[in-house]
């Protein structure tokens, strides 16, 4: 039952992240929300690994943390580049591509 505790927490975190992605306007915040979701997944992995009694999950978590970092880096880079040309990172205004 404690496993379910972890799962519920991670689910909550995941949902918060998802909610944030939908509602936030600033690119930065959206990046953070994505990080939240990844974290939720990592939490899952670790929890499962300790309950399944094998380390694969934790290894996986390590991988994913590294990847998340790289992802964040790229994300910020893109935002910065965008800011240079558009002077905004408010995603509501970034819609020249549509229909």
């Amino acid at each position, binding site marked *: 039952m404690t496993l379910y505790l972890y*799962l519920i927490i991670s689910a909550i975190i*995941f949902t918060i*992240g998802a909610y944030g*992605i939908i509602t936030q306007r600033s*690119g930065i915040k*959206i990046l953070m929300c*994505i990080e939240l*979701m*990844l974290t*939720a*997944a*990592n939490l*899952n*992995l670790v*929890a*499962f*690994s300790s*309950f*399944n009694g*094998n380390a*694969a*999950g934790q*290894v*996986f978590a390590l*991988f*994913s943390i590294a*990847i998340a970092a*790289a*992802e964040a880096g*790229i*994300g910020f*880079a*893109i*935002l910065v*580049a*965008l800011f*240079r*040309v*558009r002077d905004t990172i408010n*995603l509501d205004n*970034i*819609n*020249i*591509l*549509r229909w």
Partner: protein
Amino acid sequence: MNYVLLAPEILLTVLALIVIFIGLLVSDRSKNMLGYISAAGLVASLVYVLGTKGEGSFFYNALVIDPLSQFFKLIFIVVSLLAVIASIKYFENNRNQDEYYALILLATVGMMVVASANDLVSLFVGFELASMSTYVLAGFEKKNPASLEAALKYFIIGSLSSALMLFGMSLVYGVTGSTNITAIIEFFKANPAVSGLDVIAMVFLVAGFGFKMALVPFHMWAPDTYEGSPSVVSALLAAGSKKMGFVAAFRVLVLALVALRADLWVTFGILAVITMTYGNIVAISQRSIKRMLAYSSIAQAGYIALAFVVTTQMSIAGGILLALGHALMKGGAFIAVAVVGYMVLSDNKNAKNIDDIENFAGLGKRAPITAFALFVFFLALAGIPPSAGFIGKFVLFYSITIEAVRQASTWFLIVVIIAILNSALSIYYYARVIRYMYVLPPAGEKIKEPAPYVIAIVLAVIGTIGIGLYPQPFIEMAMNAANVVLGV
């Protein structure tokens, strides 16, 4: 366990590093050679992939080499090759070429890893490697807001869906206690009772792969990204990284679902039908050719997804064939659009939306080779014989028809009829462009089509028609791959 089989991946990784390294040393002028170098590397690995037969598994069975992986590696390398060749012209004298080529190579490696991944970890890593490289590539024109916007959208939706995928993977791991796909399948085989959690996990995976496949409703990023990115990168995305989603789906979903005896064909049927219809219907009303191609590739994804509806050897072989065909046709088409862009810009430096259909008027006179190539690609996409597109659709539709016949199921029949009507409908927007190219008067004088483009396009054309004229070997390969998918 001979790592020689992994030579292509290794070669390309090393090559990527070398390219960056050279980039540091040489002057911007001479960076143009990097394109040739990476092309050579890709050719080498292509030859290798075609040449080697052996199978094997590596790193504690995290990577496997089998017909499926080889077939898709073939696709990925060919597409990257086309993209690279075209880029030699597209990014000529661009001072960041080194990074560009390195990224393409890394993306290729990522896709190849996914193709042969047999462990959720390696799958995830490969996925992310490919994704991140392509995020950057999509936004490679730093001064062009469209390109950056494309990159941003691609990035946000992409990382969202990789989060979903990771979450799904974590659940799978939780249920099965292992990250190794073989083990997972074993587990499912052992206790096939559908616990609900595993199905949810599957759905998350579907979402994650569906993002790459651009299946409705995970497709939203695709039109914007394909439209905004540099055409050559669009080619890579549409033709290459899209297939990454499929191979992953083939590897994990099909096996898992077969093992679970959880027939999701209704789900996939609905997804496929909606996807193809959506893609075609929206494509009709597009004026930007790149966007039209984007929607058409969504539609194609719908066709390929039919393979999941009836998971028979035939259908999966058909899906794989269509994937191959689509890689060639779409890749070639995007590169052809790049030629048009080049043409338009050479007419007038600061032309806006250069892929507007108006710019295709009289292309048959202005750029005959490109026009003819586009003509071939479009007809192939519409499924007119003899072409790769036709062979793929032929086998695919056949597989579903015979399922309809065998199980006397009206639903399959309806599905295939919708598919047929779709491919008839798609003729409309392809033919419209063809008309622009050949019927309308040219807007300018004839141009000299740059050699790299021509080479890339001609290769694609040869592939498209060649498969149509002599599909025998490819069908066999696809069949073997399908056997792997079905774990036979």
